[in-house]
């Protein structure tokens, strides 16, 4: 009983000891915050990656692909039976995207993906990341009349999404206005020959055909437009980061909009591949919030790509694809499926990978980061343990007389030890508890804190330009929190054991005599 009373009194009267546990508090708080954020990032990334990638992918080794995806899919269906929820053939090729902005050609390397708009949704979440509500219901490569989202529909939950007013004019209307502008421009060129180069082309205008000086104009008059210029080309969905940039106010500025035309240059399927280009019309943007994908993915209809790249056998009409995406039933172990499919398909022709295999390095990197951070932070708490050790030795020396008194009253050595170990435990509990509260509060208000820090330092702490998340994702795992707090408590108790042993071994007479 006296142990509890004395622990409690010591805790309330020794502020120096409280100072020694501030580092425990900070360590615990930091560990909770770091773990919550890392966990948040990992989960978010997993979710994003998994929704972008299908569970298992069969891929060709070459850009030429393999023929007859239908046969492959039937084979997969036979192998896996009910475990398959959906399948879709795709073509993945490297490509260059070019568009005109501010009178200059902007060219970017991209990953061109030919998708089957009808079955794409069955193999993974794709439509959900599009910017037109109708496309989210049923994806189409047709240009929409208008009605694109003017706010980020994925950020709507927590607010703070970028304002995208420019999207108001996107769609067919945009195309009409581009055409009008082009017409005005052309007539201006005709009215004032030789001044064409002085006129700055309008932002985001259609690729113009520079007719050069009028000498050539006379010899080779501008070709008559035989097609309807308002009729869109084949549709293309661009990763949103390819078409936008973030300005200082964190607003998305659009370089191209749905309705504008872009050029894609990609290799043909032959050997050696030759570069081929064609004009496409942007019909929507793809925004999965993974900057790596948002800034490299370009989707076109698979048939068009097969025709352009020469992936259709002219005699039999068999089409080629480079990959088949497979979505599995929930709860099916995709590694088992992968191994099954690896046995079914010759490895020299295709490779079978799960989405984790494909993103392995990234996922392991995040896991390793978390582990190392935890290790380092735990070191901080351990250092705090040494602080407790030192302070406790001091307190034992200070309390020498009291220890003698207690012993003279009949307290046993183990009782004395209990006081100091209990005191350590209590201090640890206060420190770790405080740390837990601070950590959890920090996590709860992390965005406000990040804003405040950004305001103080003038630099954004969490740059949405890099992550494309508006809020810092956090997940508080009760299990992790428990572990952290238990670890801190253990350290506090361990640090108090040595001084407590010393206290318990003090000779009562000498302790009483101590001044």
């Amino acid at each position, binding site marked *: 009983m006296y142990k509890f*009373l004395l622990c409690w009194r*010591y805790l309330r009267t020794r502020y120096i000891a409280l100072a020694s546990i501030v580092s425990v508090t900070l360590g615990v708080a930091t560990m909770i915050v770091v773990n919550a954020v890392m966990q948040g990032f990992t989960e978010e990334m997993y979710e994003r990656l998994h929704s972008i990638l299908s569970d298992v992918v069969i891929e060709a080794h070459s850009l030429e692909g393999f023929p007859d995806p239908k046969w492959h899919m039937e084979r997969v269906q036979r192998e896996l039976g009910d475990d398959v929820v959906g399948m879709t053939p795709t073509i993945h090729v490297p490509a260059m995207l070019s568009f005109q902005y501010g009178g200059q050609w902007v060219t970017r390397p991209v990953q061109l993906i030919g998708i089957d708009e009808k079955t794409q949704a069955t193999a993974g979440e794709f439509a959900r990341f599009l910017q037109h509500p109708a496309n989210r219901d049923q994806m189409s490569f047709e240009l929409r009349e208008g009605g694109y989202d003017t706010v980020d529909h994925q950020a709507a939950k927590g607010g703070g999404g970028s304002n995208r007013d420019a999207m108001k004019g996107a769609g067919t209307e945009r195309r009409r206005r581009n055409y009008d502008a082009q017409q005005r421009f052309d007539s201006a060129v005709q009215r004032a020959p030789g001044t064409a180069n002085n006129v700055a082309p309008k932002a985001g205008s259609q690729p113009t055909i520079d007719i050069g000086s009028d000498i050539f104009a006379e010899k080779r008059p501008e070709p008559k437009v035989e097609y309807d210029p308002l009729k869109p080309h084949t549709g293309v969905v661009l990763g949103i980061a390819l078409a936008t940039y973030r300005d200082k106010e964190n607003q998305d500025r659009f370089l191209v909009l749905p309705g504008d035309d872009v050029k894609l240059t990609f290799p043909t399927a032959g050997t050696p591949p030759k570069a081929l280009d064609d004009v496409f019309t942007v019909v929507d943007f793809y925004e999965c919030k993974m900057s790596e994908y948002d800034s490299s993915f370009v989707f076109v209809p698979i048939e068009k790509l097969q025709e352009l790249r020469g992936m259709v056998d002219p005699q039999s009409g068999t089409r080629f694809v480079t990959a088949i995406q497979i979505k599995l039933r929930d709860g099916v172990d995709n590694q088992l499926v992968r191994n099954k499919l690896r046995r079914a398909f010759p490895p020299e022709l295709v490779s079978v990978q799960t989405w984790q295999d494909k993103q392995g390095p990234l996922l392991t990197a995040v896991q390793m980061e978390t582990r190392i951070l935890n290790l380092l932070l735990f070191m901080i708490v351990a250092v705090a343990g040494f602080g407790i050790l030192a302070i406790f030795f001091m307190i034992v020396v200070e309390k020498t007389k009291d220890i*003698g008194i207690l012993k*003279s009253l*009949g307290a046993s050595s183990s*009782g004395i030890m209990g006081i100091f170990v209990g005191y350590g435990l209590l201090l640890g509990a206060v420190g770790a508890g405080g740390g837990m509260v601070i950590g959890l509060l920090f996590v709860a208000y992390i965005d406000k804190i990040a804003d405040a820090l950004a305001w103080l330092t003038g630099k954004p702490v969490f740059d949405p330009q890099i992550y494309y998340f508006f809020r810092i994702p956090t997940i508080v795992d009760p299990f992790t929190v428990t572990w952290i707090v238990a670890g801190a408590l253990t350290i506090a108790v361990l640090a108090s054991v040595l001084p407590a042993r010393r206290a318990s071994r003090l000779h009562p007479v000498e302790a009483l005599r101590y001044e």
Partner: protein
Amino acid sequence: MSNVQTSVRERFATRAADEVADLPPQLSAIGLRKSYRKGPSEVPVLRGVDIAIERGEFVSIIGQSGSGKSTLLHVLGTLDQGDSGQVHFAGKRIDNLPTRQRDRLRNRSIGMIFQFYHLLPELTALENVLSPLMIAEGWLSYWRQRHAFRDRATKLLKTMGLEHRIHHRPREMSGGEMQRTAIARALIAQPEVLLADEPTGNLDQPTGREILGILRTLNRQEKLTIVMVTHDLAIAEQADRVVRLVEGRVEQAD
């Protein structure tokens, strides 16, 4: 001085005759030796002390500093152990008991007060008085009996004239008040023996007399056996019997 001693002896003799004729002494030491090690040399403190304190006796041990009187008291009170010799408590040898049993004996049967009061500074007077009971009982049994214990401690403090100091910390009290609190603490477990180590050494004369008065009353009314160590003859003479300790031996005073 010899008058005083004679009268003490007479008093003791009568009491011994009619009360404790065939009972073993409350506390006794036989051939007690102890020396402290100071570097390579050994400093003998007790050189074969024989002493017997009967039940209900008020004995004072007097001697100059370094005569070993405090050490004797510590050994008698099981706070310390002699190098050789025996200590008996109510006829039972206690110097060779295991630590735990000696802790228990000290907690239940021996009360101690000191020159510097030795109260715990973090606790109030009441808590200080209760501390031997807290040590004696597990927290559950203490919790069950807490009201009885509190009443007992409050009553004890009241008899010590400290009802206005019950919730005060030691640093808010005067020396006399602290010593009275210490006496209350020593008595709470209802011990058979009270060992007092220079109980008035740090107090002014009137306060010292007051404390002695309390001890004497306790001895007379409660029949409490008291062993008091002092270097002041005037104080020592307040006891029934004075034992003189010279160079680690009991000097036969007759």
